[in-house]
């Protein structure tokens, strides 16, 4: 099921079977001067069905949105064999939006077979890239909020703290936080967004502009190819130093507190941490995500035990502190099996809705058990 079925230039939509790789779809629509606007790091291998099932988001989401904003129509199959086709319309108010039973289900209630996504005109020639350094992450969060609340819509709005930034920007910003913006779209819109952001940044003397070439080069090398992944694997095996991430979302009023407390607690409570940092990569008028990036040395620990010594304890701190402060434990990485431990806290009083959806559509529990909701084995 890997065919692109239709590229509709009039209605600005593309329809693809679930097995179409996003990069193949993107390359196909680019021939028409169009883009899906969806660019997660997994683009070369992620398939359309999976991207919808995981509520994925891409690197240009601040302009184009996440998959939930891109999905126009979808066909899916339920465990009882029912094939449901949700038609692609610009918007409707015909009951609750049932696309959201499909979006993010992670294969726990249905199997997506066909996807229709929106398209945008592609204007690479009008892209503008901006970078700034500053000392404090907290200042960066406030400035990011100012830009989003003012109404500007860059495609990329990122904020790196000094520790996470070390891995990316130490050649020009050692010990500093870095803010990156990319604007795109029609010329007047892209330029107006860029000028608006520049004007706000200029008001903040704590921010210093960075030469565009530095940011452009960094962005061009952000996503790894297969060769780079192999180098990384070799490096991990040689050094026993492992990188992992946990990314969350939070309203503006909570994000600084979450950042501070998670940083403090993980560094104090978890052994062998070599780097603990964070960056924000998806911004909204009502908050942002925080992508915690951490490295640890695996010391005196079998591979089977690593999850209990490092992985889960770190996730526990981040997920619990985030939920306590009013945020969400997963912005776009999904629940999978590794965050089921906190699904009750995440949804609170709304959890019954999720359980009833599962019970209604998959009463026999055959669809991806143990994902999103914990899999309980009844004691006899």
């Amino acid at each position: 099921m890997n065919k692109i079925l239709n590229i509709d230039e009039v209605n600005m939509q593309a329809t693809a079977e679930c097995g179409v790789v996003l990069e193949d779809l993107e390359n196909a629509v680019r021939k028409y001067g169009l883009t899906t606007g969806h660019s997660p790091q997994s683009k070369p291998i992620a398939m359309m069905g999976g991207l919808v099932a995981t509520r994925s988001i891409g690197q240009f989401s601040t302009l184009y949105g996440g998959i939930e904003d891109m999905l126009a129509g979808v066909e899916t199959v339920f465990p009882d064999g029912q094939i449901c086709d949700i038609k692609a319309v610009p918007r409707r108010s015909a009951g609750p939006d049932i696309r959201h039973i499909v979006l993010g289900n992670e294969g726990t209630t249905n199997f997506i077979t066909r996807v229709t996504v929106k398209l945008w005109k592609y204007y690479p020639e009008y892209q503008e890239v901006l970078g700034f350094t500053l000392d404090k992450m907290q200042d960066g969060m406030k400035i990011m909020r100012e830009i989003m609340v003012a109404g500007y819509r860059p495609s990329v709005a990122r904020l790196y703290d000094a520790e996470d930034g070390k891995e990316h920007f130490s050649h020009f910003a050692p010990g500093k936080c870095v803010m990156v913006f990319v604007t795109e779209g029609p010329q007047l819109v892209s330029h107006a967004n860029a000028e608006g952001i520049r004007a706000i940044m200029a008001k903040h003397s704590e921010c210093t502009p960075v030469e565009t070439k530095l940011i452009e080069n960094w962005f061009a090398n952000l996503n790894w190819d297969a060769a780079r992944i192999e180098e990384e694997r070799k490096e991990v095996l040689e050094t026993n130093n492992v990188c992992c991430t946990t990314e969350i979302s939070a309203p503006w009023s909570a994000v600084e507190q979450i950042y501070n407390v998670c940083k403090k607690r993980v560094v104090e409570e978890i052994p062998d941490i070599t780097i603990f940092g964070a960056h924000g990569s998806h911004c909204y008028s009502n908050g942002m995500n925080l992508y915690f990036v951490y490295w640890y040395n695996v010391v005196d620990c079998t591979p089977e035990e690593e999850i209990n010594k490092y992985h889960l304890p770190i996730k526990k701190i981040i997920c619990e502190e985030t939920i306590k402060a009013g945020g969400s434990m997963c912005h776009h990485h999904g629940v999978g099996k590794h965050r089921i431990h906190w699904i009750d806290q995440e949804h609170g009083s709304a959890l019954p809705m999720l359980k009833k959806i599962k019970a209604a559509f998959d009463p026999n529990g055959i669809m991806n058990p143990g994902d999103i909701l914990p899999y309980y084995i009844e004691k006899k």
Partner: protein
Amino acid sequence: MKLLTCFKLCPDMDKLRQQDFEISGGKGLETSFLPNMINCFDESGLEFGIRLSEKSEGLEPNIEKTAFTIGGDASEMYLRTLKALGYEHCVLVKKDEDEFRYSPCMVAQTIAEYVGENPQDIIVMGKEAPNGNNSATAQLVSVLTGRPLISSVIDVKFCDDGTLTVTVTNDGDVYEQTVALPVVLSIGNAVISKLRVPTLKQRMKCKDLPLEHFKPAETSCAMFPEPMRAVIPDRRRGGYLSPYSGSEAVDDIQGKFLKGRLGEA
């Protein structure tokens, strides 16, 4: 026992895109916007330095380690990492890379001067670094310090009796040698390529410890002629793109290019 490991910071050339290729200063490539990394052969040497000084199998070598580099401010971050990893001395000779990229003599004379003031039993460095590609510094240090050179080292360890054993390669063949000290080791495609990583706590402890700065005497050496010109190679062959695919493409290429091609000597 004293061990000196020399390293050089290089730009990460994997991150240079085709469209960004630009000659700088007539004799180099513009790489100031690229992230830095420790030259891979030197990085192996730095990790070997730590492994040699670790207690192993009843042996407790008492090794005072020095990490030594010539470069700019960007080197400081790496020296602090090495401090956090246990290098007792971290030495920076401040110099712009343009001044010594094609002057392995200058580099070797600087190292030799430091060794003259701070005698070392084992001197370790990578066999070459990408920018200058001189592949000469270890040899010159060997001659200037009067210590014999062991080339293409891919592994190093102390034996139970305290002698140094090295594994070397020679055009694909691998040998193990025990060597007398003092010695200069030139590191090749080593069995380990990555330096271990210090913990955050180790880094915090060393954050404010002083680095050492060394100012060498002015030197000159005419052994390596400076380049007259630098040219970005044009490797394009104006390739023919077969308009076909599969078997038809093979027939197309076979007919146009391959037939008879192996005939001449």
